């Protein structure tokens, strides 16, 4: 049985500083609707993308500035890709994959070394579900790539790029299933079974 906690619900009687929780009067409470795992940690079920350095994100060029590009990475604050950090030239609407270089104190993101992703399909899934799409050591992505035969780039921010060729419909179907059942245990086995049947 998975244990869902809602904002304000007691997580621990001791004060523990951890993500998605807060401490008040020596006790720890959940701040976000999340799953309480066996070790007492919180796995959020919903929420915006919280950028962190070295995250690999997928974004769409939304504007061209004099010194670089504005990139839509579906985070609450904007992302910027400097022309110095990339050899490629982009147009508005191009899809790029880039690592987060830095996040400043007001959470504005600077990307480093963007790479263009030509053609293909771009889909969006909730950012909190991305760890399940990636799987342990990329196991899930590798499995989908192998079954569908198309290149897949998963951004931590929730954008997923599916390359040209291969069975894109299948890949989308599998990702949809992952999102739907992300918090139900035994996901990898079920996806494995689903892909074997097909």
């Amino acid at each position: 049985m998975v244990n869902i906690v809602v904002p304000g619900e007691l997580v621990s009687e001791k004060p523990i500083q951890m993500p998605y929780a807060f401490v008040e009067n020596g006790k720890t409470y959940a701040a976000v609707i999340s799953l309480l795992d066996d070790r007492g940690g919180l796995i959020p079920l919903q929420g915006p993308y919280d950028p962190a350095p070295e995250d690999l994100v997928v974004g769409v060029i939304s504007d061209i500035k004099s010194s670089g590009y504005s990139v839509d990475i579906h985070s609450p604050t904007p992302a910027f890709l400097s022309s110095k950090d990339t050899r490629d030239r982009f147009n508005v609407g191009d899809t790029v994959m880039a690592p987060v270089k830095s996040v400043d104190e007001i959470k504005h993101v600077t990307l480093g070394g963007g790479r263009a992703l030509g053609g293909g399909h771009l889909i969006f899934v909730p950012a909190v579900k991305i760890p399940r799409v990636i799987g342990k050591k990329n196991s899930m992505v590798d499995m989908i790539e192998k079954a569908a035969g198309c290149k897949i780039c998963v951004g931590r921010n929730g954008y997923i790029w599916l390359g040209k060729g291969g069975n894109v419909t299948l890949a989308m179907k599998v990702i949809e299933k992952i999102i739907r059942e992300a918090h139900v245990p035994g996901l990898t086995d079920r996806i494995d079974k689903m892909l074997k049947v097909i």
Partner: protein
Amino acid sequence: MEKPTLVVEGKRLDGRAFDQLRPIKMKAHVINAADGSAYVEWGDNKVLVGVYGPKECLPRHMANPYKAIVKCRYSMAPFSVLEERIRTGPSRRSTELSMVIRQVFEHTMFLEAYPETEIDIFIDILQAGGGTRCAGITAASIALADAGIPMRDLICAVSAGKIDGQIAVDLSKDEDNYGEADVPVAIAPRNKDILLFQMDGLLTRDEIEHMLDLAYSASSVINRMQVDALKEAYSGERTEAVLPL
């Protein structure tokens, strides 16, 4: 219109006891396009809430580099009341309610986590039957939790007041219109903080204390319903679509 008798043989107009709530139904995550949403039926009230954000703050000059700003819009549908149709758009009343509801949530959310952004709360009253601001706050709280915005507590609100000399909780439209006093209260159930307290009418200090007792016990019932609505929406499979762009 003449004032109706609000208390008959120790019971209220709709047969409730003085400490009894109207039937309440809550559902979280009802709008796919919104980041968070909720629908609440509370007696005759029907309230739909959508939450968007945190997102880029527009206009830019309103952005705060230290925290997110909250924008709240409470509005009643033209068809929401029995009397003359309400004109669409903001009114004096809805502007005030938008403000007090905004202030309730400004004190609840961890706004510092999202500098230079805005969080939009849209509260639409589809059908009104007394106590819409309380139903609105209760629904908005579920919607904010559904959006995954960090909060200190799930706020719930309930009205209390005085009808025909008796203190009662959760006033209906007639009790509100013809009663002696109406007091909407928003409560943080965990530490019993009061986040909204408005009073229309007159009450003595003792009456207020009695009324608050009733409101506190009602709030724990409402809070349990909010938690159940959220947990129900998140247990089992979700019908979230992968959005092609």
